[in-house]
């Protein structure tokens, strides 16, 4: 399969009357790991959800293309079938639906009609991935996210990602609320997909996860747009100086202009 390219271009978006994204531009290619960092309330989660097609967001300008195809014209399930994946910050709890049944349905939804995955092939793959992520096999038969701890939910998101093998994955605060061991497991999952046919956008508030998933690009997002981009060193600088530094620098550059 060819190397994926996700192009977000001058994206404007609002919820009700509130403008959230104000001309955001970002391109993610296969083989690249991007990190978007920024203070709380700056629109990071909204960006993630709107890329996936959450109906509450209203796009007011710009475009999102995956391999040249207009994502904004597609519903979330079509975007997913084109290879987009969103690991959610707060995954829903689905009562009465086991993780295994759900994943099997999701895998089959991506396949051409009549070629559903056999139960054995599915089970083998699921067992393998769960072992890789140090997950208790019992998880497969528990209801999706119901009664899961925060860490278990995040692990489950990564499990889904590894099972569905997306081309571009957006990970929304996959590290928040995790202890270091859990962060290592989650990172191991992301790293295992690294390659020319996989690109990732890691949205985070903290630098910590970037010690384990090394980004190629770091972007700082403030007030609905990317204000600064750089390499992995930018995350370290941010960690040292804090978000106030970005705000001050931003203010200075605006004043100079």
């Amino acid at each position, binding site marked *: 399969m060819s190397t994926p390219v996700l192009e977000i271009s001058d994206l404007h978006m609002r919820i009700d009357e509130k403008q959230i994204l104000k001309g955001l531009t970002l391109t993610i290619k296969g083989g690249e790991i991007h990190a978007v960092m920024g203070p709380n309330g700056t629109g990071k989660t909204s960006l993630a959800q709107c890329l996936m097609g959450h109906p509450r967001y209203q796009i007011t300008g710009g475009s999102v293309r995956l391999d040249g195809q207009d994502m904004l014209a597609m519903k979330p399930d079509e975007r997913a079938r084109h290879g987009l994946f969103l690991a959610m910050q707060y995954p*829903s709890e689905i009562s009465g639906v086991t993780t295994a049944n759900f994943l099997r349905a999701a895998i089959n*939804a991506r396949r051409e009609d009549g070629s559903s995955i056999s139960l054995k092939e599915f089970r083998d793959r699921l067992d393998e991935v769960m072992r890789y992520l140090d997950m208790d096999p019992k998880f497969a038969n528990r209801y999706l996210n119901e009664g899961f701890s925060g860490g278990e939910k995040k692990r489950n998101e990564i499990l889904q990602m590894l099972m569905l093998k997306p081309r571009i994955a957006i990970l929304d605060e996959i590290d928040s609320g995790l202890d270091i061991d859990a962060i290592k497991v989650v990172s191991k999952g992301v790293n295992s997909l690294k390659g020319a046919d996989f690109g990732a956008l890691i949205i985070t508030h903290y630098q910590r996860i970037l010690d384990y998933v090394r980004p190629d690009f770091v972007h700082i997002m403030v007030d609905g747009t990317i204000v600064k981009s750089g390499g992995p060193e930018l995350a370290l600088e941010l960690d040292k100086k804090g978000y106030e530094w970005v705000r001050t620098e931003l203010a200075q550059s605006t004043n100079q202009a």
Partner: protein
Amino acid sequence: MSEMILDQTSQAELNSLVEERFGHEPEWSLKRRREAVHALLNLDWPRLERTPLKKRKLDQIALFQAVPAPGVRPTPAPDGWAEIWLDNNQVVSVSVPDTLSQKGVRLEALNEALGDPEVEAQLGRLLGQDEDKVAALNGALWQGGVFLRVPAHLREVVQVSIRCHATAEAQAVFSKNLIICGSESHVVVTQRLETDDGGMKTMLSENTEIIVEDGGRVDFGAIQQCAPTVEGFIHRSGALGHDAVLNWNIGEFGSGLVVSDHVSHLNEPGASTASTTVFFGAGSQHQDYSAKSYHHAPHTTSNMVARGVMKNKARSVFTGLTQIEAGAKGSDGRQKEQTLMLSGDARADAIPSLIIDERDVFAAHAASAGPIDRAAVFYLTSRGLSEAEAERMIVHGFLAPVIDSIALPELRDEVWDAVERKIRA
């Protein structure tokens, strides 16, 4: 006569109709019918707070129609089962395995059993005929039904299937069923109610009375899948002796209007009842359910669970009542009702109530009615499932704990099939 409608009919006409059709019945039965005719003209349609019946024009239905000839031909019952088929309220087939009939299990048309003093003594004790106009219509004009008698102390579990079907020609289906389970016996009853599509408006009034003697157990399962033209009034009531058990598994899917209830009278210490109702409304269906548990004696237990799904413009009301009387010490009564709405036009009310007149008891209720969680739908679609598939999965998950608790595998599968059809409809 068959064209008569209610608001143009006199008592004299009705009386002669009763004589003509039921004159051969024992005097006690005929007398009750005459009393019901008398009551009929003075009673109103049922008054239901959230289900106005006026605009449904029930009195325009050909209520006095003679039953049309039976339609379907029965297929053989599963091995070991006793089975009775009613078509347009006429028994078209009865089969009782020899092993059961030799031990005294009786499964027959109720009309044929009216000479039995036990039937005379028990019929109508739990469901009267002067509550409202539907009850009186049923009392005056009931055409058929089932009598099931299971003697005491049977070692094996008796399995009984009751199949009630009506063709599209039937416009008035009034029936009565009487089930008596003897002491320390155990009977499993599965009732299927179905009517063909494409007919005129039909009134279906179905009364089932269940008596469970000391230490006996009845598992009563029913699945209703009538045509949208049906206006259904389905009443079920049970009386329990010492340590008796009555379990209800009710699946309600069909009928344009359905007013349905099931009631358990826990008359003696140690009696217990569990009830599970699953309902699913679509189109413009209106469903008014209630379940009632009356604790008349100490150390009685009840557990009522209901889950329903409403889509399109369907409307449901579920009223649960748990009543613990003074003196019913050590009783335990619980209820839980949950409804899921799939569209903005659907409406569901869950109305739980507890009436407790005794201190030393445990009682609890919980109810919720809410729209489908859009965040959950988004979550599932973000993994590649279509919106319809995501909703289907959420509905499945919502109903699974209740449907999977149905002990009878056949009934459980049929309920799942019915749910599947409703989701996809």
